């Protein structure tokens, strides 16, 4: 039987306090006052849809993907590259190998749920598992309501036919060119139509039609639904749809608006991931995705649902370790919504030699160093001659991946001179358990929050953005290891 075999998620640590936004923009848009409660997740300056997707993927598959992994899908409408397959970058970062199906899905908020249905429907023809990632780094104009309603985040689902934790029961899709919002090619932001129209003509007419069609196909009834997942920015919409369909109102899941906002393509899967983390065996889960129609799919959890544990603590852990951000200017800066005087140091050319990057892709994106087969010394980068002076063996090293090796900081500084989008930039000598070291950038740390010996873990992040050429360089940085410091 096809279904979900694992799940994960990621919500960035920073949580922009809506109150701070409203205080800054209320003079211009008094209507924001009603949205001043709670917080929304926001990417650090070095995070985007790709880095969040990788982190969600690591949460889902742990240190090493399953041996029978055959494909990776990445759904998002905010992918960093319009033409360079983003899923392939994620696959390299996740060390999934190169004999792999890689697919980017985009163009609709429904890309996450539609893609999931597509993979599950085709599961019978596959011989292995699929890693399905969805992420969105929402882009909104300053001072609009969307800025407060949206959030950033990612989710991951592992899909397969054996040892499923949630059996796929069926799906239905409704495709209607209902344009509640759109974003034209090469435009930064969405253009939105009136909420009342979206609610009355959109959600209330299109979703019930889909629910009726779905339940006509499967042998469970709306009243059997234990968990209903439906992201919707307009208050009360899922509740009213549930009521109309005969779905128990207790099934309707919180849309996480208060704690993270809505993460676009990823949001339904983030909610699903969270629900699975708290699910009991035998629960029926309805997932509804919205965008030019709707996707509906049904799952039933198995006994195995309680034994699966996301490697990094899942969506629950991500949500629990937020850091309140009260500086709206930092949000504007991180999202390139304001022109800053970055100084001449920021003008350093960041061109990437693509041929070099290709040769070093496993070193840079996959974070692989070497392990000497003669003396066992691990080292980064991998080299022709072993770094151990007592060994010095030639051509003796096999790949050694550092991404998941726990590490600590041996020495560090907070550097206020070098250009950083979030000064002072922290970096230090990071030493890995079992050997190996790297002078590495630190991320997700606060001024005064670093000390020698603190436990760290490596995360895949943007290293530098080549603004001149529209290229992003990705590499690994050290972040506080929440599993050890919590």
């Amino acid at each position, binding site marked *: 039987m096809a279904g979900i075999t694992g799940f994960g998620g990621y919500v960035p640590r920073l949580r922009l306090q809506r109150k701070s936004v409203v205080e800054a923009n209320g003079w211009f848009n008094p209507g924001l006052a009603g949205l001043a409660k709670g917080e929304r997740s926001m990417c650090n300056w070095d995070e985007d849809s790709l880095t969040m997707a990788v982190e969600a993927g690591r949460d889902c598959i742990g240190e090493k993907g399953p041996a029978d992994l055959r494909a990776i899908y990445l759904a998002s409408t905010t992918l960093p590259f319009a033409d360079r397959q983003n899923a392939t970058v994620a696959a390299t970062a996740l060390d999934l190998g190169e004999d792999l199906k890689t697919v980017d899905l985009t163009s609709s908020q429904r890309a996450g749920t539609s893609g999931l249905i597509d993979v599950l429907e085709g599961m019978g023809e596959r011989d292995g598992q699929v890693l399905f990632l969805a992420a969105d780094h929402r882009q909104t104009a300053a001072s609009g309501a969307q800025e407060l309603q949206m959030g950033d985040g990612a989710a991951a689902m592992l899909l397969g036919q054996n040892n499923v934790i949630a059996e796929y029961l069926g799906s239905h899709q409704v495709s209607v060119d209902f344009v509640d919002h759109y974003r034209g090619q090469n435009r930064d932001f969405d253009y939105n139509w009136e909420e009342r129209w979206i609610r009355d003509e959109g959600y209330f007419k299109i979703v019930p039609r889909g629910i009726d069609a779905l339940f006509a196909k499967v042998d469970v009834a709306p009243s059997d639904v234990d968990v209903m997942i439906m992201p919707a920015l307009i208050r009360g919409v899922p509740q009213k749809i549930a009521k109309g369909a005969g779905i128990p109102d207790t099934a309707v899941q919180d849309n996480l608006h208060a704690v993270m906002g809505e993460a676009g393509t990823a949001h339904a899967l983030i909610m699903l991931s969270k629900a699975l983390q708290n699910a009991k065996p035998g629960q029926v889960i309805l997932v509804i995705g919205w965008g030019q129609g709707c996707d509906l799919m049904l799952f039933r959890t198995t006994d195995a649902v309680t034994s699966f544990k996301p490697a990094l603590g899942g969506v629950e852990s991500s949500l629990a370790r937020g850091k309140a951000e009260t500086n709206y200017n930092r949000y504007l800066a991180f999202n390139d919504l304001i022109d800053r005087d970055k*100084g*001449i140091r920021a003008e350093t050319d960041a061109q990437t030699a693509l041929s070099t990057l290709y040769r*070093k892709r496993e070193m840079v994106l996959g974070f692989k160093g070497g392990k000497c087969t003669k003396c066992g010394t691990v080292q980064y980068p991998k080299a022709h001659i072993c770094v151990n002076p007592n060994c010095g063996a030639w051509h003796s090293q096999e790949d050694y991946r550092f991404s998941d090796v726990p590490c600590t900081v041996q020495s560090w500084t907070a550097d*206020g001179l070098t250009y950083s989008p979030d000064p*002072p*930039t922290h*970096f230090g000598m990071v030493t890995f358990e079992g050997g190996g070291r790297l*002078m590495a*950038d630190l991320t997700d740390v606060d001024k005064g929050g670093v000390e020698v010996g603190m436990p760290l873990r490596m995360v895949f992040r943007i290293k530098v953005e080549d603004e001149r050429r529209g290229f992003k360089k990705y590499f690994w940085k050290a972040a506080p290891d929440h599993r050890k410091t919590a």
Partner: protein
Amino acid sequence: MPAGIRDRVAILGMGCSKFGERWDCDADDLIIEAYEECLKDAGIETSQIEAAWFSTAIEEIHVGKSAVPLSVALRLPYIPVTRVENYCASGTEAFRGAVYAVASGAADIALAVGVEKLKDTGYGGLPQNMAGAVSNMTWANASAPGSFAQLATAYQKKHGVKPEDLKRAMAQVSVKSHANGAKNPKAHLQKEIDTDAVLNAPMIAEPLGLFDCCGVSDGSAAAIVTTPEIARKLGKKDLVTVKALQLAVSNGIESSGEGWDGSYFMTTRKAAERAYAEAGITNPREQVSMFECHDCFSITELVTAEDLYISKEGTAWKDFLDGFFDADGGVPAQIDGGLKCFGHPIGASGLRMLYEMYQQLLGRADKRQLADPKIGLTHNLGGFPHHNVSSIAIVGLEGA
């Protein structure tokens, strides 16, 4: 152990430009300023120079590549000229090239010139994009002060020194150098400072504040070297000879191997051991009269005093607080004001340090003159604590 070059090469003349924000000068102007003094001091003509070495590090912001800019500036008569770059040790590398040419017999008289015109970037501090295509993808986003600042966190941890005590010792490093620099008309910064000014300065890279960092300036320095015999024939009486030239270069152990704790320079220790052996020095704390080390940052000087085996490991911070490295202390350090007051025009710095040792040994250091110095040591440290080039030169009176 090879015989080395002790006393085989003498300094015939030296010159040093005024260091500072030389808004009035291009690199060739600075070169001429240093070379004119050098040539006059040597008492020879340009036509007598048989080979030259030219050091400059960040050539893309001033002279461009190759040795041609030096040859053109000095109208050198189609002699071999070599451009060298080895991070902050570049100036000492030019000197090494010239000294080795003479020691080998390949040239009777050789020239070393270093220059750096840094103040045309439009911002303070050093440019920092020097890593190369591969390293640019993986190296931390580090400025020079950020890299060296980490010596402090590692040193504190290793030796159990309280942050405030180390910060005070580091402050004394700078206070001492400013006291010396105030007496040097060629220094960029010629003002004395007090401890409070250092401690209260704006933070650059924790725990290094503004006064823990050396200046950034323009400058040039030059040396003409020959054999002691030729020097005497040319009428020189008191000879300053080269006692040792050593260089040690990181091989990746600090950056990717095991064992290095980040609190010292592996390279400097190796270079110092070899240099002392070459110079016949067995007790540096007693035998070295004075030194100019690479005080790019206060913490660099502090740990270098240990790496040069002048202070015992873990005690340099006390030696600084006790005044051991002051002008009237046991082993005066940075008697000309150091990088702290001269700034660090990279290609010139090594030669600038040698210039001060040379002046001191000949008793020509004016208000800074030390009593009867016999052996002077210079040290450069280029790159980062985990990835560097360390050079040591020892010069002294002939026979010392």
